[in-house]
C-alpha cells in the first residue's frame, strides 16, 4: 500500500511543530517520544503501521481549532483518531502528519429524555451512550461489534452499523446534531435536537467521511425506548440457497426482524468449537432471526418466521424461550471472529454488501476463489441488510498475507459485480482505497474530491485514505470549456 510521499520540509521542521503544538496543548497533551508514539502506529487494521510526527490530545474545542490552523500553516497533515478501532486503516498515521486524538473528549454533556436525545463528546464509547440511559429504559440503536471500545466520533466518521441496521438504521439515521472544526479552525454546528436540516444536509456528508472533511467535536444522537421483549430463532438449513430463500420470504411477508444473521458451515463449526452455543453442526447455513417489540408481536412473528423456515426446508429450528437461551444463540455469532482467530494464525475480515438474493452465487464463487488461493474462508453475513463478512484465514509467517489480500480484493470486486458495494460498514480507508476504481469512474471520484476541497482546500485532512489518486483542488476545479451553439438540435424546445 503506497502512501503519499511525505513532505520532506515538514519532516525537517518536526521539532519546531511539536514546540508550537505544546503552546496550544500543554503538558502531556502532545506526545513526541518515539516509544510512546508506537501505541498510535496503527489502528484495528494492524497490517499497516506508520509512526506519526507526533500525537496531539486536545481537551477543548478551542485547542482543536488552534491545532488545525497551526497544522495548516505548517503544511502538516492531520489524521483524526477516535478509539483507533477502524478495520480499514482510517486512523493509520502519516509520516508527515500529526494524529489528532479525541480520547479526552469523553463526557456525556446532556441527557434529554423529553426529546429523546443525548449530547456527548466524540470520545464517549458507543456502548457508553446506551449505558448512560439504560436505567431509564432507553438505548442507542447502532451497535457495531466493537461497541465496548469504539467512540461515537469514530462511528460518525465511519457511519458505523451493527446487527440491528435493517430495522433501526446505521449511524447516519440516528444522528440529530454535530459540531465540527474545519481546517480553517472555524467551528460549525449542525442540527440540534430537531429533525432535518434547513439547508444542505452537511451532517449526512460528514457521516461516513472517514476524517477527510472535518474533526467532529460533539455529537447529538437520538435514543429509543428499549423494546419490551426480544426472542430469537436458530434455524439450520441444508444449503445456503435454502437459507437465502428463507431470508427473502421473511422480508417478502412484510416482516422486518430486529436482526437476521447467517453463518456458513466453516463459521458454524469454528463458533461451536469455541463456545458450545449448541449450533447444528450438520447445517450448511445457520440463520439467527431476532424479533423484538411487544410480547404479543414477537410471539406472533416467531410463529410466522418458523413456518416460513420449515417451508424453505429448514432441518433444525429452535425458538428461544428465555432470555438466557436468546443470549446463548447469539454467543456463537458474536464470538465468530475470535473463534476464527483460534483456528488460524491470522485472518482478514472483509466487508462487502451484496443484494441479498445474490448470496448463494457469491458464496459459491468465494468457494472457487478459496480453492484457487489455497486459503480457507468462513462467512458471516448480516442477512437482513446484505452485508457480507468473509473471514479469510491465512498465516503471515508462511508468507500468505499477499495472497489473502488478493483473495479479499477479488471478493470485493465480486460484490461490486453483482450489484453491491466495496464496503458496508468498515470504511474504505487505506484497505480498499485502490479498489475504488472498480466501483466508481474517474469523474465520480473527481466530484467527491471536489467536495472535499470545499472543506479542506489544502488537502491536509487524512490524505491517502479513500481516494486512490490525489489531485490538487485547483486542478479538480478547472473546467474544460467547449463554447459553441446549443448542441443537439434533436432536443425538443418549447
Amino acid at each position, binding site marked *: 500500500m503506497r502512501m503519499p510521499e511525505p513532505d520532506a520540509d515538514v519532516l525537517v521542521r518536526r521539532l519546531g511543530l511539536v514546540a508550537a503544538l505544546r503552546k496550544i496543548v500543554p503538558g502531556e497533551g502532545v506526545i513526541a517520544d518515539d516509544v510512546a508514539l508506537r501505541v498510535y502506529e496503527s489502528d484495528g487494521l494492524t497490517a499497516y503501521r506508520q509512526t506519526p510526527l507526533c500525537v496531539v490530545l486536545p481537551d477543548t474545542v478551542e485547542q482543536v481549532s488552534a491545532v488545525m490552523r497551526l497544522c495548516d500553516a505548517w503544511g502538516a497533515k492531520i489524521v483524526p483518531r477516535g478509539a483507533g478501532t477502524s478495520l480499514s486503516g482510517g486512523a493509520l498515521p502519516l509520516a508527515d502528519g500529526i494524529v489528532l486524538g479525541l480520547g479526552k473528549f469523553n463526557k456525556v454533556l446532556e441527557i434529554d429524555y423529553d426529546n429523546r436525545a443525548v449530547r456527548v463528546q466524540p470520545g464517549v464509547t458507543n456502548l457508553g451512550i446506551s449505558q448512560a440511559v439504560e436505567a431509564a429504559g432507553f438505548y442507542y440503536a447502532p451497535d457495531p461489534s466493537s461497541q465496548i471500545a469504539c467512540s461515537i466520533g469514530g462511528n460518525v466518521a465511519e457511519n458505523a452499523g451493527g446487527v440491528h441496521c435493517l430495522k433501526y438504521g446505521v449511524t447516519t439515521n440516528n444522528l440529530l446534531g454535530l459540531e465540527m472544526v474545519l481546517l480553517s479552525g472555524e467551528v460549525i454546528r449542525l442540527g440540534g*435536537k430537531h429533525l432535518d436540516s434547513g439547508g444542505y444536509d452537511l451532517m449526512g456528508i460528514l457521516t461516513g467521511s472517514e476524517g477527510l472533511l472535518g474533526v467532529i467535536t460533539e455529537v447529538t444522537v437520538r435514543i429509543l425506548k428499549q423494546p419490551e421483549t426480544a426472542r430469537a430463532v436458530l434455524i439450520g438449513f441444508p444449503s445456503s440457497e435454502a437459507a437465502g430463500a428463507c431470508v427473502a420470504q421473511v422480508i417478502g411477508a412484510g416482516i422486518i426482524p430486529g436482526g437476521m444473521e447467517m453463518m456458513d458451515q466453516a463459521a458454524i463449526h469454528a463458533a461451536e468449537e469455541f463456545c458450545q452455543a449448541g449450533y447444528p453442526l450438520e447445517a450448511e447455513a445457520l440463520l439467527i432471526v431476532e424479533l423484538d417489540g411487544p410480547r404479543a408481536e414477537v410471539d406472533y412473528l416467531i410463529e410466522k418466521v418458523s413456518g416460513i423456515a420449515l417451508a424453505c426446508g429448514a432441518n433444525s429450528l429452535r425458538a428461544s424461550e428465555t432470555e438466557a437461551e436468546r443470549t446463548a444463540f447469539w454467543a456463537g455469532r458474536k464470538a465468530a471472529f475470535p473463534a476464527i482467530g483460534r483456528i488460524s494464525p491470522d485472518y482478514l475480515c472483509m466487508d462487502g454488501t451484496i443484494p441479498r438474493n445474490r448470496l448463494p452465487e457469491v458464496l459459491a464463487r468465494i468457494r472457487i476463489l478459496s480453492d484457487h488461493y489455497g486459503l480457507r474462508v468462513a462467512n458471516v453475513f448480516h442477512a437482513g441488510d446484505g452485508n457480507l463478512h468473509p473471514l479469510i484465514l491465512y498465516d503471515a509467517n508462511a508468507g500468505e498475507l499477499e495472497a489473502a489480500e488478493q483473495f479479499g480484493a477479488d471478493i470485493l470486486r465480486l460484490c461490486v459485480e453483482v450489484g453491491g458495494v466495496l464496503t458496508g460498514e468498515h470504511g474504505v480507508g487505506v484497505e480498499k482505497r485502490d479498489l475504488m476504481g472498480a466501483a466508481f469512474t474517474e469523474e465520480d471520484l473527481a466530484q467527491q474530491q471536489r467536495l472535499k476541497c470545499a472543506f479542506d482546500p489544502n488537502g491536509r485532512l487524512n490524505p491517502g485514505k479513500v481516494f486512490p489518486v490525489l489531485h490538487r483542488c485547483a486542478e479538480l476545479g478547472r473546467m474544460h470549456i467547449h463554447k459553441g451553439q446549443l448542441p443537439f438540435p434533436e432536443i425538443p424546445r418549447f
Partner: protein
Amino acid sequence: MPQTLKPQDAGQVAEVLAWAAAEEKTMALVGGGSKAALGRPVTTDYRLDLSALNGVSLYEPEELVLRAAAATPLGQIQAMLAQQRQQLAFEPPDFGDLYQSMEQQTIGGVLATNLAGPRRIKAGAARDHFLGVQGISGRGTAFKSGGRVVKNVTGYDLCKLMAGSFGTLAALTEVTVKVLPAPEKVRTVLLFGLDDAAAIVAMSQAAGSPYEVSGLAHLPSAIAAHSAVSYVGGAGAAVTAARLEGPAPSVAHRTAALRAQWGAVGAVEELHGQNSAVLWREIANVASLLPDPHAVIWKLSVTPSLGAAAAAAALAMGGQVYYDWAGGLLWLALRHQDRAQDDGGAALVRSALNEPDSGHATLIRGPDALRGRIDVFQPSAPPLAALIGRIKDSFDPRRILNPGRMYGDI
C-alpha cells in the same frame, strides 16, 4: 417565460448542462412542476424539463429496493408498491392542494426537497431512504454515488447532500430508494381537550414509550374542526393523535396500552384504518387543516419540547398552528398583507428560534414577491454560509442550476 429544453435521456442532460456551463446560461430544473412554488422564485435563461426521464427500471420487493428515472411520477411508484403491499415509509406529503397545483410530483422532486410526512419520527426522512443517485452536475458531467443496498460506506454519501438541495447542485437523473412493507394494521388513539403545552408532554410520553408510535400530532380545537374525520372534526375540542402500525396482535396490544396511558390524562377515542388514513393524510398535506388560501404557511422544525413556546409569538399575532412530529414540527399559517414592507412573519417566526441549535423555519407557501424578498430557508451563520457556497461551487461553479432557489446567491 424562458425557453424550455427537454432532453430525452441523461446523456442529453449532460450535453445541455455542459453547454450551459460554457455559455453561463442559467437553468431552472423542472421534474413534474408540482413544487414550483416551494423555495425562492428563480429567473433563468432556460427551463430544463426533465420529465422525459421517466420509468421504473428495477423493483425487487423482496430486496426492498426500487430504482427509477428521476422524473418518474410518484403516483406511479406508489401504485406499484401498493400492489406488493409496500410503501415509501417516509410518507411523502402531497402539497397539490396547498399550492393549488394539478402537476404530478416526481420521485426526484420528493427527494430533492427531502419532504417527509408524519412517519418521519419513526421511519426517517426522504434522505434516509435514498440509497443511490445518478446525476449531472453544473459542470455538465455525470456522477453517481451510493448503490442499491442499505449498508454502504463506499465514499461520501452524496445522496444525503442531494436530498434537500432543491436542484442547486445537480440535475438528478436516476434514483434508487429503499422501500418497506406497508403495515398490516393501523390504529390511531385520540386524546381530547389538551392545551398545546400539555399535549406536547403527552406526545413526549408516547414517543418515549415502547409502543413504537409512527405518528404524533396535536390539533388545537380550531384546527381540528377542519378535519373530515368526524371524531376529530366534531370533537369541539383540541385533538392529540398517536398512530400505531404493525402486525394485528401487536397493534391491538399497543393501542390498548397507549389508551391506558393517555386515558389517565383525558378522554380518549380510537380510529380504525380508513379514518386513520384520512386524518394522517390531512396532517401530512396541510391544506385542509390550514384552509385559508391567502395565508402564508411556515414550517418550523424545532426541539419538540420547545414547540409550544416557538408557536406563542405567532399565535399572539393571530396565527394558526398545529403540531406534527411529537411537537417538533409546527405548521403555521399567518395572515399576509401583500405589501412591499411585509416580511410574511419571517422576523416573528425566526425570533422564536434564537437559541443556538433550536431549529429552523422554512416558508412553505407565500406569494412570489415575498419569497423573492425574504429568506425562505433559515439563514446560516457566516462560516456555515461560506461553506455552503463552496459546496455549491464544487458541483456548480458557474452557478447555473436553479440560481437563487435556496438562498440569494445559491
